[in-house]
């Protein structure tokens, strides 16, 4: 059978039937994969598409999660009303994180600065116990959508899948548009892009804010999924997890983000089954990133694209 692009519509429909065959725990893992797909898509915008070395993603993730958690616990809002505000908080943080980039801070300077930004955010979760519960963590009530309580993982799955599909389609359309091409031009040569009349500063803010928005939504989903937020969830281990996802999947590729989150999130569950591998996630992820950079610089999505050209991203990516 010859594959065509309709597979991108059939696959999500097939996924709809997943709860029929999975138990509660496996369903939880699938939901976690959905959360990480959003995180990876947002992260890839800045790292893969704009080509900037920024570590602030975990800060957006934490801000989104805590915004959602604080709004539901302190103000008693239902969860579905907090998704967009969480995204907006992430976007605000994104604007803040793009200020150094506007000042001309690039490369590893930007990396170090955003690393410090993420650690400062983690410190502030610990130091504001009235809002965030401090180092004890924040317990989030069960999520509610239009008056229905999402009591089981199956319920959460359908809501999450809806959000993920909407965001992925929107991002795909965005990357095929003028904005996506501008990101690519900035990635390839910033001076040349500016000379072509692209307002690089505006696109920097836009990319960081969009990334923050998407990752913030991912954070609010994480809060709803896990039910308990603690500052340790948002430390540097999380940063490396995000990097592993987008590197293994493929920098700047939407399909890569999806593929990477499935692989990296499922790996610890596979490891759990082997006695001698317990506790080996770190060196396996580190080794996986090393192997991918050395031998497959465009990630697994480039392999898929070689198998069948329909898996190529429709926007040009060098």
């Amino acid at each position, binding site marked *: 059978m010859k594959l065509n692009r309709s597979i991108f519509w059939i696959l999500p429909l097939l996924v709809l039937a997943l709860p029929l065959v999975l138990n509660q725990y496996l369903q939880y893992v699938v939901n976690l994969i959905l959360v990480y797909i959003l995180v990876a898509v947002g992260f890839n915008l800045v790292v893969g598409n704009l080509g900037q*070395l920024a570590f602030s993603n975990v800060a957006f993730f934490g801000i989104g999660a805590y915004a959602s958690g604080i709004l539901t616990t302190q103000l008693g809002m239902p969860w579905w009303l907090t998704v967009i505000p969480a995204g907006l908080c992430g976007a605000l943080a994104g604007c803040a994180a793009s200020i150094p980039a506007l000042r001309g801070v690039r490369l590893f300077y930007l990396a170090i600065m955003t690393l410090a930004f993420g650690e*400062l955010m983690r410190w502030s979760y610990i130091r504001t116990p009235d809002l965030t519960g401090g180092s004890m963590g924040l317990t989030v009530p069960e999520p509610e959508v239009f008056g229905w309580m999402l009591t089981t993982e199956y319920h959460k799955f359908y809501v999450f899948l809806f959000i993920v599909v909407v965001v992925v389609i929107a991002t795909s359309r965005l990357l095929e548009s003028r904005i996506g091409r501008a990101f690519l031009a900035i990635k390839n040569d910033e001076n040349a892009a500016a000379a072509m009349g692209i307002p690089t500063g505006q696109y920097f803010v836009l990319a960081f804010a969009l990334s923050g928005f998407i990752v913030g939504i991912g954070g609010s989903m994480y809060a709803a999924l896990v039910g308990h937020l603690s500052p340790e969830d948002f430390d540097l281990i999380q940063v490396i997890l995000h990097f592993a996802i987008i590197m293994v999947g493929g920098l700047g590729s939407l399909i890569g983000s999806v593929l990477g989150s499935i692989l990296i999130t499922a790996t610890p569950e596979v490891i759990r089954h082997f006695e001698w591998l317990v506790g080996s996630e770190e060196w396996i992820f580190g080794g996986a990133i090393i192997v991918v950079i050395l031998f497959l610089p465009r990630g697994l999505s480039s392999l898929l694209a070689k198998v069948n050209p329909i898996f190529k991203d429709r926007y040009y990516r060098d």
Partner: protein
Amino acid sequence: MIEQIQSVLTNWDAMLPVLPQLVVSGIAIGMLYALIALSMTILYRATTVVNFGHGDLVMLGAYTLFILLPMVTFNITLESSALSSLVSFVPPYLVALILSLCVLFAMGYIIHRVFIWPILKGPHLSLALMAIAIGYAVRGVIRKEYGKEILQMPRPFPEQEFEVFNWGGIGTYMTLDEIIFCTVVIVMLLISYIVFYKTRFGQIVQAMFQTQRGASLVGINVMHHNNLIWGVGCSLGALGGVMIGLTLVLDPDVGTWTLLRGFAAMTLGGFGSLYGAVIGGLIIGILEKVLGVFVSTAFIEITCYLVIVLVLLIRPRGLFGQHATLRI
């Protein structure tokens, strides 16, 4: 915030005599940061790669010493006096220290040759990610083997305190550790100054810092010298790691802590400047202690982050660095 400032002002007279002690212990901890920043600067100067995994290699240095120590310790049972314990313990400690520095030299050499060199011409993104991934893998291996219990680094010399000077009846103390560490760091700084500015090797490294391609055009074996520099940087970092292991506990996660403080020192001093790294480390050490006591203990953890953010926002090239930003 305002109340804190007021309380500082009212307590000023009571706190002022503590200041020399804070500065002295700040200098002592700042020397450690300076050594880490110095080793990272050496790597950066030679290869223009910022090693994001350096913290974990520093941690590996401390663990290597910890692993090697039981292998080289020979039991001499003299009478149980302080002197005999010193005699039976210091030489094996030195042997283990030198061995672990050699091991880390080899590690740095191999890491650069196998992982960094093939992608050195590639984008900065993959270089940074490669360094992070190496550090992460190292940390994973160490945590899998030794991460289950809290390990204490064996001490080569007893804990002692000396009064350095006395001001208004309140003495200023330094521990034996701090004195030895400061001496070692100053010696290392002098050695690296001589090596980088007075020898042929240093000239080669400076040429490579300006342009690697030009250096290879005039007949310098760039790969070989890069390998060597990575080895030197890693073994200097391992020396810092041993000191950190003696000051704190052995912990696989100490790498991140180290890395961020090293970065703060480098950023403040200016990237690529040897004495800038040392002065930056000292300033951060003193700031941590002084702000921690005079303003709030919360500042101890975040001083280095605040320094990074503020310096890069206000003066991205730091105190002594050059060209940090891109102007469009």
